[in-house]
């Protein structure tokens, strides 16, 4: 395996007293696109959030981008980008305000970069000056994807990334995932929309009960 970007060994994470991750083992190499599938409550979202250092890991070994997630969550967070169920945007700020904040906070190159990203996602022009709270769910999702791009992260964590997007938005997102993976960024994506997500993936892992039950290359059917 090439340089390992995500190394999880016997990882346990609790939501309250419930073990959302009950001994997960997973290695992901640089540039891989790994699809995580499984039923509701399988632990997919918690797995992505654990990789981002957003949920505490109570046992096991978790190293993401060379940083120990249990000891150095801040270093991990600097280099990952998460597209979760929520948009993570400020409703009272405009689209451009939100993206400028992301660019400044993450120290991504500002100015032209924000404008380029807006144009790339079809958010330029009038839409950039609209408050996020006035946008439709699909438009909000596109702004969240724009924020993801601006972070220039080494690891993308995508949780149901196609949810809420129209056909054009889905195509655009798929193109972005392919381009970013081709550029060397690692992508871990959780999705129920297998027909949509599988062609993007180089590997598929199946989760159930907080554990990884099966693993196969994307072309192999049988982990569903």
């Amino acid at each position: 395996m090439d340089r390992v970007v995500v190394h999880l060994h016997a990882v346990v994470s609790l939501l309250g007293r419930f073990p959302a991750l009950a001994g997960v083992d997973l290695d992901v190499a640089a540039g891989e696109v790994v699809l995580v599938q499984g039923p509701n409550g399988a632990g997919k979202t918690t797995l992505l959030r654990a990789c981002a250092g957003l949920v505490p890991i109570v046992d096991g070994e978790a190293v993401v981008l060379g940083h120990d997630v249990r000891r150095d969550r801040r270093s991990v967070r600097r280099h990952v980008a998460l597209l979760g169920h929520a948009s993570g945007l400020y409703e009272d700020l405009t689209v451009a305000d939100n993206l400028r904040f992301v660019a400044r906070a993450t120290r991504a190159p500002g100015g032209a970069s924000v404008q380029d990203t807006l144009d790339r996602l079809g958010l330029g022009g009038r839409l950039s000056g609209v408050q996020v709270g006035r946008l439709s769910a699909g438009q909000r999702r596109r702004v969240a994807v724009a924020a993801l791009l601006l972070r220039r992260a080494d690891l993308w964590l995508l949780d149901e990334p196609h949810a809420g997007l129209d056909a054009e938005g889905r195509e655009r997102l798929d193109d972005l995932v392919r381009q970013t993976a081709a550029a060397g960024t690692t992508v871990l994506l959780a999705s129920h929309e297998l027909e949509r997500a599988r062609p993007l993936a180089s590997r598929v892992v199946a989760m159930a009960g907080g554990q990884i039950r099966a693993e196969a290359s994307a072309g192999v059917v049988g982990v569903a």
Partner: protein
Amino acid sequence: MWHDAAVMAGKDLRIELRSRVATNQVAPFALLVLVLFAFALDPDRGVLARAAAGLFWVAVLFCALLAIQRAFAVEATDGARDNLRLSGLDPAAIFLGKAGAIAAELGVLEVLLGAGVVVLYNRALHGPALLVVTCVLATIGLAAAGTLYGALAAGLRVRETLLPLLLLPVVAPVLLAATRASEAALGGSPGDGWPWVRLLGVFAVIYVAFGVVAFGPLLEESS
């Protein structure tokens, strides 16, 4: 750290500019409180004039509670707090930025309330320097303590009602010292107010220092 704090404060102040909650709701509320105090305490008997400093700071405290709750409510919607944690901003800088934005809002409200006290309560100002220093230090203390306890309450389901219960006892010394110093500034004996200003300075330093150290763990625990 100062760059991060400026980014954070800029974001929070921009949210207030865009939403206009401070100008359309908090400022009218502050003036309404002053007017209601004037109705409750008959101006003709001199009670209102004597209590003006205390009433001013109670009104500021009410506005501070609204500003603090608002500052953390915007982080609670649509997963914004997760993105803040992922932003890589230094937690101490997030604290300083949030407290700075709250302090800036309170500063504007204090000017408005000060004008209200002069006009509605008919009070003259004898020690402007003392009053300005009092306002600056008390505002820093209120904003710092409020930001810290706002983060503590942010993750709780009953945060709206819990925040005043947690915060008011903690800022009681600030309220006391600020009222005494302001009374001295309004009453023609500014020299009596400076010892209280020193106390305000001590509280401001303690709350800011404690916030810088404790805000990071609180942000994690409240998420």
